[in-house]
């Protein structure tokens, strides 16, 4: 038993590390890139419909629209829909009149969207036009800056990540614990 202590310890340590990594995912909020690498989207007027692919890298439980200075487009309403195979997986109506100078409307989805590829559809109705900002980083720029471009759509997803490296390190330790030896020495006959 004694000579296996180190092996057992390595295996236990390895399994513990794997469990630690699997049971302690890191959760954080991440913004999605919805307009390729471009931060500014085209001017968006009432009656227009915008459709573009949306890649959701992790489970998404909510999405939001944020508005920055919409004094002149109070009569505009945005309908944002996330389509999966032509069907609406999630939709939100965003009347800009409800928003004062700045605002953010968060929509909790009835059930989380699984990671995958979707289509984002934004339809404007009413009167006026806005410039949508779509870059994943644009949110931060607008939040902290003096942008006065109108309104931007920010898709936010809650990411749950597990450390692959930690699982890997655990697996290495377990494997080391299982290192094969050369076998037992031959027993010599007693004289």
């Amino acid at each position, binding site marked *: 038993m004694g*000579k*296996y202590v*180190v*092996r057992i310890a*390595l295996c236990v340590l390895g399994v513990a*590390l794997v469990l*630690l*990594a699997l049971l*302690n*995912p*890191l*959760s954080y909020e991440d913004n999605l890139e919805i307009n390729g690498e471009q931060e500014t989207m085209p001017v968006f007027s009432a009656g227009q419909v915008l459709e573009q692919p949306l890649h959701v890298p992790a489970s998404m439980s909510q999405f939001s629209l944020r508005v920055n200075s919409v004094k002149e487009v109070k009569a505009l309403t945005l309908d944002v829909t996330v389509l999966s195979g032509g069907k609406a997986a999630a939709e939100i109506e965003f009347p800009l009149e409800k928003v004062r100078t700045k605002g953010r409307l968060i929509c909790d989805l009835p059930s989380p969207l699984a990671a995958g590829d979707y289509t984002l559809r934004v339809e404007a109705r009413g009167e006026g036009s806005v410039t949508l900002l779509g870059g994943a980083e644009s949110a931060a720029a607008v939040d902290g800056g003096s942008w006065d471009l109108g309104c931007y759509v920010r898709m936010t997803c809650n990411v749950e*990540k597990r*450390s*692959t*490296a*930690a699982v*890997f*390190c655990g*697996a*290495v330790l377990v*494997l*080391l*614990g299982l*290192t*094969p*030896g*050369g*076998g*037992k*020495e*031959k027993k010599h006959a007693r004289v």
Partner: protein
Amino acid sequence: MRVSKRGVLLAAALVLALCLALCAALLVPEGHIVFEGNVIDLLDGEFPVVETLPGGQWINVPVFVHALTLLWGAAAIVWELTAKEVKLHRLTLVLLLLAGTMSVLCRPALEYYGWDEMTHRELVYIFSGYDRYSLSEYVMQLSTWFFGYMPYTLGVAVSNALHLPEAVILRTGSMVSVILYAVMASLAVKHTPRCKMTFMIFALMPTVLIQSSYFTYDGTVIAYLLLAVALLLEEMQTPDRRLGSGRSLALVALMVIGTIAKPAYSVFLLLLWMLPAGKFGGRKRQTVFRLFVLLMLAMCLFSMTLGTYDNVAHGDSRMDGANSAGQIAHILSDPGGFLNMLLTYLKVVGLSLFTAATASWAYLGASGDIATLLMWMFFIVCPLCSIGEQRPLSGLTARRRIWMGVLAWVPVLALIITQYIVSSPVGESVIVGMQPRYTLPVMVVLSLALAWPRDVRAKLAPLNRPLAFALLACSWCALYAFVADQVLRLYFGL
């Protein structure tokens, strides 16, 4: 266990020297960070001299202790080499602890030498919990580099738990690394049945010791590999004795944990294929062991895809014009030209990589003459000395030497090509970024592959002691020239 009077006296002297060094460390300024990773400043010769001890003092204690440990080391060499039974591993431990302690304690702790060390420190701080993170954040930041930083992490975590000042925390991390390195190197010298002097002189090389005393995983990689190779040689000495469970675990674990932080060297796992069939209870067991070794090698190589190299994989941002995809396209467009450039590089720079590796690191280093002397001494003279060896080794056949030689070049070539892809500007006709110290982990294996035949060594056996004395005297002086260079010149302005 019988302890000799000589050993007790040597240990007492060592403890006294370490205590004095600790006292001296209290007088060394902590320093401060005067630049943040601006390598250009260093290249321009603006070394971070932070504080010079006030002049006019009747004695400069750190410098005095420095000189004292130099003399102690010299005395230990003479003492050990005049003993009836020479125990090189004991001497290795003493010398490494003396020089390592001075290197760690007699320099300002808060200084660092550019981008590399800054990155290493940050990671050690993360792994040791110095920076507060939630459990999930901590687990998310774990990587295979953790294995390379284990001694530093341990030192920093313990001293941080004791709420010690930052300068002490940093010194503790480095000290744990130096102690681990000294113990590993000493064990390697003890266990290797052949070329003990090669192992010892390598362990005493200035760059190797200095790397262990700074925050970097390179010292750990070298320490683990050194012991693994020594244990492998020991096993090959007894081809008919089965490979024990503990020994097989030690061999594989040292290779894997030692090299996974730098997977280019994981190819040394294939050295384990040299274990003869008699070490295993049948062909089947040998095949299973070899397949397992292959699996572990694959794991080590796969670890490179887990994100640790993401920030340089597309091209090292520190180098102007570096772009991996562009460079690969350039190589594929003219493979003949690339091969020609590679061969020219090896012809022109190849040897100087090994020379510079012995005594130059991070813009620090003793003179080029010392480095050249060390390199030739290591490859040519060291293998001639068979002091401390019980019996000649039978396991290093010509075939195995070739295998060792080939394996020693694989990491070097892989790193040269990688540096060309990652760090050199696209289409550049020279290779940029290949640092001499990258050759250090392969040097012992290469030296064993090139070692003199047994007959030559046997003829020179009567000269073992004078040869050993000359080698150790040169090595100790070179090591101190390096340590003194960084301590006395850089920090005390002498």
